């Protein structure tokens, strides 16, 4: 008793508090376990952090907005300070959005913080996904976490879209109109679903309230749950690290959580928040007062959805004319179904890719050292093809703006996009794969012959050579540290039969690895070092002779 008391006095308030907390929740054990956990450092690991932090900013700014926003579609006559709309019929939702913008101090700022951070959230999550894909971070044991991350990305888009529609302005109303049209195009259940969603005919008086429930409760709750799973798995697996000397699949190299990572990551939250705040202070986003309340009749040319919905809108635009047909007396709107199916298949391929690659390589080991993209040429090329496909769809959402800004024919722009959607991913695949292989060969050359030093020496017999400097052992290791996969043949199983599965896997493995460049071995480097040594001797001799 007296011992504790003196200890408390000796160490003051902080130690006392720590003692109090530990005796009640046993926090010291947690700190012992996690306090010095190692986190690797790399700028690309911050992309996921940006997504996480912008989500926190969304929660903070969104909560502020809920105190002022009224999700009602009841018709009112506007009588606020914004003169151009005075006396206009509009929904309470739109009127309260105007009031937040013009009559609440900091209201417009928070609206803009919320919108900008939403755009940043989806962007950062997308880039984070690309980082994970191109470095092979989705490999065992992280396949499930890839799927969780994928769900988070889709939830992010859902959160964005439900929020976008809330102010009930002309632009977001048209967005809902498009959704309604797409739903109606679904055979057999479309009209029912539309009626259930809108509470009757479009636009009805229910949709904003319903989207509000989804936007502020269900979707963020799901995001929080999946985020928790995502982060728990991150701790469980420990972070990956980039290939370099000393980094192995069996260790983790970086800085301890306390104090370095707490300071860096904690500080980074404030930086992300600060940058969003800076953008929101200076740059208008979604000036709803310019559009007016929703009215099904007018629309302005050049309207664009928020960026992350662009690829879906583009998919709708790129569908060729006259795809709709009749099956008996049932109308089949392939002009809507085809883009929907293509988008869903694309998403499914993204979600399932890790399992496919694992089937091809058959590598059941845990992977914690990241691949440099060049060292997995076919994966990188597939990624590039996917990005290109997405990018063409995305650009497809702006065919009208491209045509008007560059003074081109709208028809030609669209036709180009339609062709590009098929051709460009193939081009991207081939070009990327070749670039990767070329970079691998360049690495091989540096490993074997060293870097060009720029030093030109004339040998006694008149020959000019450029002296190459051998890479130091740390740089060298980065160039040669990757896994070497070789294609397999279709082998008969125990019954002596070559199954279709085996044939498919053989074909896939050949597709992936037939051109692969094996990492340079010690033997090859030593053989070359001998040759380099001979040249070096000649050079030295030449220099001495000159003296």
């Amino acid at each position, binding site marked *: 008793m007296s011992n504790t008391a003196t200890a408390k006095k000796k160490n003051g308030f902080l130690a006392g508090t720590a003692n109090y907390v530990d005796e009640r929740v046993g926090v010291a054990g947690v700190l012992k376990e996690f306090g010095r956990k190692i986190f690797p450092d790399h700028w690309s690991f911050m992309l996921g952090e940006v997504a996480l932090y912008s989500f926190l900013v969304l929660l903070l700014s969104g909560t502020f907005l809920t105190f002022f926003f009224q999700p009602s579609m009841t018709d009112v006559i506007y009588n606020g300070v914004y003169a151009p709309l005075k006396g206009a019929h509009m929904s309470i939702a739109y009127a309260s959005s105007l009031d937040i913008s013009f009559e609440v101090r900091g209201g417009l700022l928070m609206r803009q913080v919320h919108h900008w951070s939403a755009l940043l959230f989806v962007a950062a999550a997308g880039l984070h996904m690309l980082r994970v894909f191109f470095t092979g971070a989705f490999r065992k044991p992280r396949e499930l976490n890839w799927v969780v991350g994928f769900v988070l990305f889709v939830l992010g888009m859902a959160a964005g879209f439900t929020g976008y529609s809330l102010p009930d302005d002309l632009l977001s109303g048209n967005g809902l109109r498009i959704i309604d049209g797409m739903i109606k195009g679904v055979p057999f259940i479309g*009209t029912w679903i539309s009626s259930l969603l809108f509470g009757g005919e479009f636009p009805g008086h229910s949709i904003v309230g319903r989207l509000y429930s989804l936007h502020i409760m269900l979707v963020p709750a799901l995001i929080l749950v999946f985020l928790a799973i995502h982060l728990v798995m991150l701790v469980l697996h420990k972070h990956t690290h980039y290939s370099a000397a000393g980094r192995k699949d069996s260790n983790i190299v970086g800085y301890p959580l306390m104090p370095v990572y707490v300071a860096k990551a904690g500080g980074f939250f404030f930086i992300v928040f600060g940058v969003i705040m800076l953008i929101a202070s200076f740059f208008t986003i979604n000036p709803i007062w310019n559009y007016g309340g929703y009215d099904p009749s007018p629309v302005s040319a050049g309207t664009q959805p928020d960026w992350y919905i662009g690829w879906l809108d583009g998919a709708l635009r790129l569908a060729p004319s006259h795809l709709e047909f009749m099956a008996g007396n049932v109308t089949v709107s392939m002009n809507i179904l085809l883009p929907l199916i293509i988008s869903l298949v694309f998403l499914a391929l993204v979600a399932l890719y890790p399992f496919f690659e694992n089937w091809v390589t058959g590598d059941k080991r845990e992977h914690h050292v990241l691949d440099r993209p060049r060292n997995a040429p076919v994966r990188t090329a597939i990624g590039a093809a996917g990005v290109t496909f997405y990018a063409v769809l995305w650009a497809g959402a702006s065919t009208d703006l491209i045509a008007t800004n560059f003074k081109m024919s709208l028809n030609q722009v669209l036709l180009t996009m339609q062709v590009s959607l098929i051709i460009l991913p193939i081009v991207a695949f081939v070009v990327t794969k070749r670039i990767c292989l070329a970079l691998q060969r360049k690495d091989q050359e540096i490993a074997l012959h060293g870097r060009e030093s720029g030093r030109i020496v004339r040998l006694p017999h008149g020959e000019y050579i450029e002296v190459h400097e051998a890479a130091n052992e740390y740089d060298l290791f980065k160039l040669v540290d990757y896994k070497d996969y070789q294609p397999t043949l279709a082998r008969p199983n125990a019954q002596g039969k070559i199954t279709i599965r085996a044939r498919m896997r053989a074909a896939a493995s050949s597709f992936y690895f037939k051109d692969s460049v094996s990492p340079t071995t010690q033997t090859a480097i030593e053989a070359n070092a001998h040759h380099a040594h001979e040249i070096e001797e000649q050079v030295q001799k030449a220099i001495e002779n000159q003296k």
Partner: protein
Amino acid sequence: MSEQSKEVAKSSHTSGAEHVYDGGLNVVHQDAVKDPGIEPHRVRMTDKSKKHEKAAVRQVVLLFTLSMLGSAFALYAYFAFPLSADLITVRNNTLFLGVGITLGLLGIGIGAVHWAKTLMPDNEVAEDRHPIRSSEDKRAAAIEIINLANQESGFSRRKLIRRTLYGALALFPLPGIIIFADLGPNPGDKLRHTAWKPGTRLTQDPFGTPIKASELTEGSVFHVIPEGLNPDQEDYLEQKSKAAVLLVRVDPQILKESPEKKDWSYQGIVAYSKICTHVGCPVALYEQVTHHLLCPCHQSTFDLVDGCKVIFGPASRPLPQLPIYVDEQGYLRAQSDFLEPVGPSFWDRSVKA
């Protein structure tokens, strides 16, 4: 994948591991370049010079102080830049409040990161990873627990209990789904009818002024709603999103009309639904020279003089035409409702109710 390389992969695995994983198509080279180990720590200026260390401390303190000033300025700005009917006040309030908060945030953020990067140790540490797979003991214990639970409950043994439980679990969510049915009514035939009735006058959107045929010069366009549709009625937007019409007058000579629609127009005046047959955006852009109607959402283009057939874009069906006539006073009136559902396609649009 040859058996031999499989052997190589297996043998190369760290000895002592409880479980050896298959390396698949991975070939492990025995003469791979040796890992030289973590690169030696490079000393920073703040590690070797007291002067630089002190400077870094000052910078961090400055940044945190800047943050305090920023937050204080934000508080000041909240009161110093109130809002009024003058919209410039909205800009000032947003801008100055925002800049203050930005400084408050960035000061902390950049300060903390600078502190970590210059003053906290930056030598990298390595830590072992443990296989994610549980140890064989733990796995055996887990299996034992499952088996014990199975024995004690009789889950595998008592088939009838198990199967009825599956049945119950399959059915219990159904009421939870069906209670959502009242979210909306049966769509019924509402999609097939609009506010247009025989004799309804065509009026201008949004003020409801009736239109005389003589008011339309060649090439002019009117955005039209049915007479009597007014913003005070409960279903104004629902009705308008079906009934919106575009009225155009063109040279009657160039109008290609099918025999059964011969008398749907009046001296070159045609009325078409404004709701796109693709996904329902208003087809609001009329190109006078080419007589094309363009939907700004997805660029479906309709040829006005040829029955509004689709000539470009993702739409498939022509815009429905509203049959019109002119009464004794010269006002334009609808002969009837649209003869087919307007707007986006739905699966049973051609099924006669």
